[in-house]
């Protein structure tokens, strides 16, 4: 996983709430057995609409997606994270994320930032007024900042220390857990015998 400390890019205003993972990537794209190449499936249905924000030349190269509340609801498909990353997104901002999506994002190094609704709306307005406006994400300082011709803002965000540390170091969770193998071995010895096993089938 790549380390994430700061990122500067332009924004994509997605003025919708409840962007579920079926919209992010429809099920028909989940038949593949790879982790890459999902960019064609990202928002597949919405992209057929010429008015959709990603079809607007102004926002084509954006790397920071700014969405409405309850982003990533529904299915646990990590393909949603892969599709966003494969397309080029580095950061998603929303007033609230679904738990599983947020967890999947952190595993893959896609930063999810929670900002209050009013700040998200201000960001939408600023991006639409000046699409080429650079937005700086600083994970170390936990800030989102932008400066346009008409407005500027530095917005602090909250992220737990552990997730921040993992993202900044680009650490692999499995490697970290395998360092605890002795604790896992010890725990397993205490498991009651009546707990079921899948093998052999009786």
């Amino acid at each position, binding site marked *: 996983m790549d380390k994430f400390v700061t990122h500067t890019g332009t924004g994509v205003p997605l003025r*919708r*709430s*409840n962007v*579920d993972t*079926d*919209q992010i990537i*429809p*099920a028909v794209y*989940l*038949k*593949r*057995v*790879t*982790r890459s190449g999902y960019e064609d499936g990202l928002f597949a*249905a919405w992209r057929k609409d010429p008015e959709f924000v990603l079809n607007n030349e102004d926002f084509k190269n954006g790397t920071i997606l700014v969405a*409405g*509340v*309850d982003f990533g*609801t*529904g*299915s*646990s*498909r*990590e393909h949603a*994270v892969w599709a966003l990353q494969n397309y080029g997104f580095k950061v998603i901002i929303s007033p*609230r*994320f*679904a*738990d*599983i999506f947020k*967890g*999947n994002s952190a*595993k*893959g190094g896609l930063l999810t930032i929670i900002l209050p*609704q009013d700040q998200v709306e201000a960001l939408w307005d600023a991006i639409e007024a000046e699409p080429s406006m650079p937005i700086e994400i600083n994970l170390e300082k936990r800030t989102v900042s932008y400066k346009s011709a008409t407005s500027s803002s530095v917005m602090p965000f909250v992220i*737990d*220390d*552990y997730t921040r540390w993992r993202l900044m170091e680009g650490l692999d*969770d*499995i490697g*970290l*857990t*395998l360092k*605890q*193998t002795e*604790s*896992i071995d010890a*725990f*397993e010895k205490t*498991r*009651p*015998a*009546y*707990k*079921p*096993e*899948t*093998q052999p*089938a*009786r």
Partner: protein
Amino acid sequence: MASDTSGQTLAEKIWQEHVVRSTQGEPDLLYIDLHLIHEVTSAQAFDGLRLAGRRVRRPDLTIATEDHNTPTLNIDRPIADPVSRLQVDTLRKNCAEFGVRIHSLGDIDQGIVHVVGPQLGLTQPGMTIVCGDSHTSTHGAFGALAFGIGTSEVEHVLATQTLPLVRPKTMAINVEGELQPGVTAKDIILAVIAQIGTGGGQGYVIEYRGSAIRALSMEGRMTVCNMSIEAGARAGLVAPDEKTFAYIKDKPHAPQDWEAALAYWGTLFTDADARFDVEISINANELAPFVTWGTNPAQGAPLTSVVPDPALIADVEERGAAERALVYMDLKAGTPLKNIAIDTVFLGSCTNGRIEDLRSAAAILDGKKISSTLRMLVVPGSARVRLQAEAEGLDRIFINAGAEWRNAGCSMCLGMNPDQLAPGERSASTSNRNFEGRQGKGGRTHLVSPQVAAATALRGTLSSPADL
């Protein structure tokens, strides 16, 4: 979860019993008792293991089945779509390579992963259960802490049999009273989601409590817990009781040391002095058959009401979402829900694809014909459910009524296999998600109970058994 000196909630007890390691400032490392696997979210995880030279730590706590991407017709022939076939073949190869038990298409224990676990008796009270599928919350009906995970977490559990997780907060949903005839577990959970919203349970594990929950069968409790994720909660559970124990008793993987298991299961309840972070009350007496009109599961209303007018919704975000939903659903505010004509009725899924669901729909269809204006697909949740239904003659009732009797799988719930809605087609579906395009590109979904599905099939428009 609140950690104080008072009593513990059921979820807190189960959590505490599975903590391998707890360190200040880090997530708890939680032991996983059972890991369920299917073809769609596992291939990349097995690849990760191979790349890192890792093994599956506990194949004996892991089990796989094929469900999401499998056809429900011609299952004795190779899967026609080569991309789907490769995905299923990949699961079979991975299971063979890593020593994981698998129930493949054609096997008597194949089926939707959340139907298979309970019917094998692998789902038991007090367990931690995960699967790369958000509807893993279904298993919470047995008093287990069960939740969906992503593919990176699937790999993590395969490699370590643990997951680093932040303790969720706890929410009690108290459903007191008695359901009226024709009102079901599905109507309870649709009403809950409409009340708290798709994000209302975010960050919580929900415990469903109260007399109306106690009165539900195990199948009904599974339906309720199944859709916890639709309210944003990763897990939902019900304290185990005599019904739970009776359900497990004769299953293949029921504990051999039954008395020891029973003694432990008897400790699995929320202490009288425990505190939930949030408590919500629902009056079961007032619930009615419930359907969705929009494109998220919180956009629902009693079947006797009308399509709501977005202009009357105070919240700006919700109003905008409702406006967009009515455009997508091609519905006009004020239209009685019962006037909405349906093209396809889908009976099945991990929400409502169990034997009791098929029985309740068959009882309504018995000796009658479905409307000539629609088609009806009946997809049992597992091969065993299908066999059981056939032993009871339910298949004949469905077929004689004009419905299609299919093989087990997720099918039209997510439209990954050939069972899909055509663009613009409208379904009454016993599944769990009415998202745009969920059941097929351009398809429109109304979520309903099995009884409403059956009554709708007979009348052609959204209907409850009382309308017949």
